[in-house]
């Protein structure tokens, strides 16, 4: 039988605020254990939460960015459970009345666009982190409370995702939106983004959902995709052999590339949610919402479409350039200074991306500002640098952070355009390759490139290829 999978994702994104959601402690990542704490996030007796307005604003941005509805009045609720990294014994979250409802994320897969609906977006605080050192003599666990009270939004999708690849594409699109709007760094590796998945399968054509399972503990987008693939296969196998899928929570084991049920004690069904009496209902006025809306940047999807229209770029180039807001900004700055959209796109998508990948850095960390890239391309365009030379210059700029002028001067990289010098090289090359010369003369005109290439090589990359080409033709005929 042919099956269809039904997937819904719950994404937790850390809001990019300086302070925690209910106290003034820093949210900085990587500080010494339990150093970023105060009586409030430690859950001391008698303390009270005070809502960080900035966190609300970022959450509002995210709701507007996916086209959702901001609820004028939402309510915080306590989610009650015991765990050592939850100092209060409850997490302040939103339950029955979340801040945002509705909206969608546009997902691109195999050249097709599809909207995945958003059920809700709500605000909540993060819990701490538990460490369980392993070893025979170790009979303790450690808790780091630094993360306690870090602001999160939970973004719950509709069960409208139909394949693991689509889930991956959804996460990519969502991450892009969160980064564009500066709501979250959305970096899954640093724990700024976490994703749980609900998945079920059903025979193709059937309307009712099958029994779902929940997948947790995936540490990357690829892990989400892989875990879904594994789980879908597991469910299909169960159903095909006449069994029934049990509704349960499963943990993804990255090392084993397999899922395993969570131990019963790690997980409890009844969180006894009730409205948080220490916080007033969260009311968002029209004015507030309007000011947030005004501060919203152009979203990735819109920017992609604009790049295609205004700069006449291909879908592929535009998608790559808008994959991150910083890259798109870089591109637009460079094009503003050197208005050759296609050439700038090529250089960024090929050369710049290669350096980013090699060095494992973000474009913000690249030592070549957009203006310098533009200056480099101008030189290339005016034939004062050859393509090869330009690449060499860029590599040096990436390494040293020096300007185009400085690198060119230092390397003595000036293109040779003196006709007398070039003519000497061309003559030498032509006489060195008699066979090719005869073929060319016999009509194999595509060998022009060969002669030009050899001449440039001979010159140590300095020869101006345009002039060389003219000289070759002069000697051998058109």
């Amino acid at each position, binding site marked *: 039988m042919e099956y269809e999978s039904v997937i819904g994702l719950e994404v937790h994104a850390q809001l990019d605020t300086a302070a925690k959601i209910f106290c003034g402690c820093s949210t900085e990542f990587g500080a010494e254990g339990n150093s970023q704490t105060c*009586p409030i996030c*430690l*859950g*001391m*007796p*008698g*303390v*009270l*939460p*005070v*809502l960080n307005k900035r966190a609300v604003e970022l959450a509002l941005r995210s709701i507007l960015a996916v086209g959702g509805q901001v609820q004028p009045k939402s309510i915080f609720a*306590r989610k*009650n459970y*015991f765990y*050592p990294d939850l*100092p*209060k*014994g*409850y997490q302040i979250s939103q339950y029955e009345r979340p801040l945002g409802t509705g909206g969608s994320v546009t997902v691109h897969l195999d050249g097709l666009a599809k909207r995945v609906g958003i059920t809700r977006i709500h605000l909540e605080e993060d819990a701490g982190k538990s460490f369980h050192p392993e070893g025979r003599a170790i009979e303790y666990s450690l*808790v780091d409370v630094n993360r306690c009270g870090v602001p999160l939004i939970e973004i719950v999708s509709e069960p409208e995702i139909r394949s693991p690849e689509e889930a991956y594409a959804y996460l990519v699109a969502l991450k892009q939106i969160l980064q564009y709007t500066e709501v979250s760094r959305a970096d899954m590796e640093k724990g700024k983004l976490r994703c749980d998945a609900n998945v079920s399968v059903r025979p193709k054509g059937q309307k009712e959902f099958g029994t779902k399972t929940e997948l947790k503990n995936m540490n990357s987008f690829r892990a989400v995709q892989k875990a879904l693939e594994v789980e879908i296969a597991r469910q299909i196998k169960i159903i095909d052999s006449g069994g029934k899928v049990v509704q349960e929570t499963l943990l993804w084991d990255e090392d084993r590339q397999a899922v395993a049920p969570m131990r019963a*004690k790690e997980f409890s*069904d*009844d969180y*006894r*949610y*009730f409205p948080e*009496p*220490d*916080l*007033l209902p969260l009311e968002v006025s029209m004015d507030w919402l309007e000011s947030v809306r005004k501060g919203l940047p152009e979203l990735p999807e819109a920017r992609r479409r604009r790049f295609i229209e205004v700069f006449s770029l291909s879908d592929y180039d535009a998608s790559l350039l808008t994959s991150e807001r910083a890259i798109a900004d870089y591109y637009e700055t460079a094009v503003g200074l050197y208005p050759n959209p296609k050439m700038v796109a090529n250089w960024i998508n090929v050369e710049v991306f290669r350096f980013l990948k090699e060095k494992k850095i973000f474009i913000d960390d690249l030592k070549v500002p957009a203006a310098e890239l533009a200056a480099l391309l101008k030189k290339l365009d005016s034939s004062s640098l050859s393509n090869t030379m330009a690449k060499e210059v860029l590599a040096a700029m990436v390494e040293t952070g020096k300007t185009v002028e400085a690198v060119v001067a230092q390397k003595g990289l000036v293109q040779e355009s003196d006709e007398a010098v070039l003519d000497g090289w061309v003559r030498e090359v032509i006489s060195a390759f008699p066979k090719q010369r005869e073929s060319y003369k016999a009509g194999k005109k595509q060998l022009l490139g060969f002669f030009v290439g050899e001449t440039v090589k001979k010159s140590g990359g300095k020869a101006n290829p345009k002039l060389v080409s003219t000289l070759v033709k002069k000697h051998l005929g058109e």
Partner: protein
Amino acid sequence: MGELNRKKAWELLSLLDTKEISAVELTQSCLAEIDRSGKKLNSFITVLSDSALEKAREVDVKRSKGLPVGRLAGVPVAVKDILCTKGVRTTCGSRILQNFFPPYDATVIRKLKEADAVVIGKTNMDEFAMGSSTEHSAFGPTLNPIDPARVPGGSSGGSAAAVTAHQTILALGTDTGGSVRQPASLCGIAGFRPTYGAVSRYGLVAFASSLDQISPFAKDARDLWLISDVISGHDRRDSTSIPERLFDYPYSGFKGKAGLPKTTRFGIPKEFWGEGLAPEVREAVRGTIDKVSKAGYEVEEVSLPALSAGIAVYYIICTAEASSNLARYDGVKYGVRVNDYADLFEMYAKTRAAGFGAEVKRRIILGTYVLSAGYYDAYYLKAQKVRAVMKKEFAEVFKKVDFLLGPTTPSAAFKLGEKTDDPLEMYLNDIYTVPVNLVGVPAVSIPCGKNREGLPMGLQIIGPQKKDEIVLKAAIMLESLGIKL
């Protein structure tokens, strides 16, 4: 001057200001009384003799140098051991916090210190403020100074007893369901519960967050005004704190009859006169009402039908919130942890079993139950709906009358052990006080006579939200009608 500790704060402040007495003398007179009767009554968990005297000396120096002093400069104030005091043990009357030293001061403590009050000690209480007799304390029961065979009421019984026995001039308690008004009534002193949000809850160890309110004890309503003015006010650390100032300072209206207009109308809720009200309390309150009427004020009977559900609604909401508020006492970070456990779950279970007393456990279990899946709608949600109806009824009735008047408690002080075996009987002692907490309005309990056994009885005046100052004005008026202990 002799017997300084028997005087009221407003009398003492003028003596202090004119330097007829010193803050050190005054503090010493209270400490001497604590020495004499403190152990027997078990009113304090911690006495702060050294820091109190140090503060008193500091205030005396300030006055002698002519430096400005705070509004309660040199006046001893005892605080319930549920208010966090930096570096001073704060137990909440519980074994589980017997070694807890808060790293910060509650906002009210900070305000008292800024007002140059002398914090004299931390008073005994029912564990986590759960109780009506101060018998549920891990540090033993507090006795009623009027009759040591009887309870002082609760949960702020230590503070009530301390004021009554002249161990302090003023005291703070907390009133979640009557925990200040009821002991005030049983001890024959005055106790005031301000509007919800008037006093910051920051640093008040939570029992039931939507009902808890720090509330003062004093010997009369004028003193209540003095300390309420000091402890109230907006606090950005408490999101439920109200922005308005409820007390107009400096206030001059406490001279003479306080100038309550004769058109003031008092409503007598008929639901307050039902079954369970002791005849002597009924008579005493009736007697006062007659005096109010004879003094020319309007008195009329009113009805608030939802009051009949008060106890049920209260014990659902307060236990629900408590079950969550007390989850943090898990043995992980502070407080007591048992030594012998096999795993995490057992550590929690054993720690909480050993650390909490029976009444606290009863309420945690009740509260967990009413919030559980499948029961939430039938209990918690329904209780919130009735609470909303009750708020509406109060708002309606306050369109017709300025105040509600009635008994504070159904009976005078009961004997130690009399109700400990019957929680429901104990809960019914709060029948007239809990509606105030559910609705969040201000209410004051003042003495209205003694019964044949010489035990005090109290009446309460309930006012509309944020009319705290007027409620105290009415209390002063009633006191001026010659209601004597």
